[in-house]
């Protein structure tokens, strides 16, 4: 009798976990990925789309092509999980039973939570938003650009900084820089979350005349006045506003009572188990862990989740432990980038931005489809 393993979400975490599980368990388990669209998107690409540096063709692929043939793919929207009966109900009415469940459901954007955002603010966190912003930038003839953050937590902490640096460079190349003012509204008292990386980036910003507003957490947008206000009580004027939208956990997590007040899954930082239900694991953006919401986090968590489930199926004591490993790039413009590599016991020591890291990032962008979901990048 084989174990039934169900994975909600066919993103990088879910796909990789599924492939690792069938590889290790063979006939001992049935592994099913449940995904609402059956399309796997490469989200780091959206930033480049917004800047007109990439098009949509390499950004999404059929999930089926990324999964081992032994993995079942069910294209359904999971509506509710019942941990008591160990069943997942679909919006269409069907259901699936599980022995072990992996929540790899990611995050959803909720721009509607910010008054005035929709229609007035731009975002590059969805493909539609990135395409719309690209067109807005094409029409842009100069003015005050504000890049800010309208909710915490959010995916990819480097993104607002990267966008600001790359946009400023684009404005220079287009001859619009003299007519423009570029400001990064940072939630913290520095440009970026990691202090050592902030120390690399702030001098670059200063040199390029990019302004930094600190402790500015966007609360609301006033489209008629063309202003954005912060929870700290300040206001700033814009001609072009680009914001990271607020994020929440997926509806199925909230509807099932599996999440906290933000819809994030309460997760053990090492075992990646749900803190209440030991047959449920969570990974990637879906967890409540105060670590980076980054593709690399899901990438490094997947082998831990897979290994622990394999142990449980085989009846041995699970040993694998997630030690907080994350790896991100941070593009600084001028064809340069730095890299952030860290875990729970080793803080990041980002190197001086160089062309080597920018090239590495672009190689990753291109090679992703052939390597990461299949488990070819350790």
């Amino acid at each position, binding site marked *: 009798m084989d174990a039934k393993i169900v994975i909600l979400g066919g993103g990088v975490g879910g796909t990789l976990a599924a492939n690792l599980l069938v590889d290790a368990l063979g006939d001992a388990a049935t592994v099913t990925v449940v995904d609402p669209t059956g399309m796997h998107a490469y989200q780091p690409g959206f930033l480049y789309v917004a800047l007109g540096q990439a098009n949509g063709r390499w950004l999404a692929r059929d999930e089926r092509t990324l999964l081992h043939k032994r993995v079942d793919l069910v294209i359904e929207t999971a509506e509710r999980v019942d941990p008591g009966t160990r069943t997942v109900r679909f919006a269409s009415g069907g259901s699936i039973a599980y022995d072990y469940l992996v929540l790899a459901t990611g995050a959803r954007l909720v721009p509607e939570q910010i008054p005035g955002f929709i229609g007035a603010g731009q975002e590059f966190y969805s493909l539609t938003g990135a395409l719309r912003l690209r067109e807005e930038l094409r029409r842009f003839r100069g003015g005050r650009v504000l890049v800010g953050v309208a909710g*915490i937590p959010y995916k990819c902490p480097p993104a607002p900084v990267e966008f600001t640096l790359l946009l400023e460079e684009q404005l220079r190349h287009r001859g619009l820089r003299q007519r423009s003012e570029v400001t990064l509204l940072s939630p913290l008292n520095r440009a970026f979350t990691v202090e050592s990386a902030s120390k690399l980036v702030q001098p670059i910003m200063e040199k390029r005349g990019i302004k930094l507003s600190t402790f500015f*957490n966007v609360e609301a947008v006033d489209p008629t006045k063309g202003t954005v206000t912060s*929870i700290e009580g300040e206001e700033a004027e814009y001609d072009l506003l680009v914001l990271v939208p607020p994020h929440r956990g997926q509806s199925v997590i909230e509807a099932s009572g599996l999440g*906290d007040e933000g819809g994030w899954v309460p997760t053990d930082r090492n075992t990646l188990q749900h803190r209440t239900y030991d047959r449920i694991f969570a990974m990637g953006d879906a967890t409540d862990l*105060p*670590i980076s919401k980054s593709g690399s986090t899901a990438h490094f968590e997947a082998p831990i989740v897979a290994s622990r489930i394999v142990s449980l199926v085989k009846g041995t004591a699970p040993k694998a432990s997630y030690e907080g490993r994350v790896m991100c790039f941070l593009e600084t413009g001028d064809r340069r980038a730095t890299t952030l590599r860290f875990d*729970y*016991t080793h803080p990041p020591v980002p190197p001086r931005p160089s062309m080597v890291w920018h090239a590495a990032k672009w190689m990753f962008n291109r090679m992703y489809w052939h390597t990461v979901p299949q488990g070819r990048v350790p």
Partner: protein
Amino acid sequence: MTLTETEVTKTIDARGMACPGPLMTLIGAIRAGAVGDTFAVLSSDAGSKTDIPAWVAKARHELVQTVPADGYSTFIVRKAR
């Protein structure tokens, strides 16, 4: 002896978590919370000793208590408005 207990609404264990960091996580928790909610943030980051009080003051919330421990500190912050 009578004690007035601080009811901690939520504990955020951000020890060893460099990014987005204890302060960012606290800001998110305060945004999502109700007035009066109290958060205990555990941070092993030395910068938190200045960063957290600085933001709490600017955002006009209350830093109830700072408690040093072994390799980390705990900051008790109340959402005041």
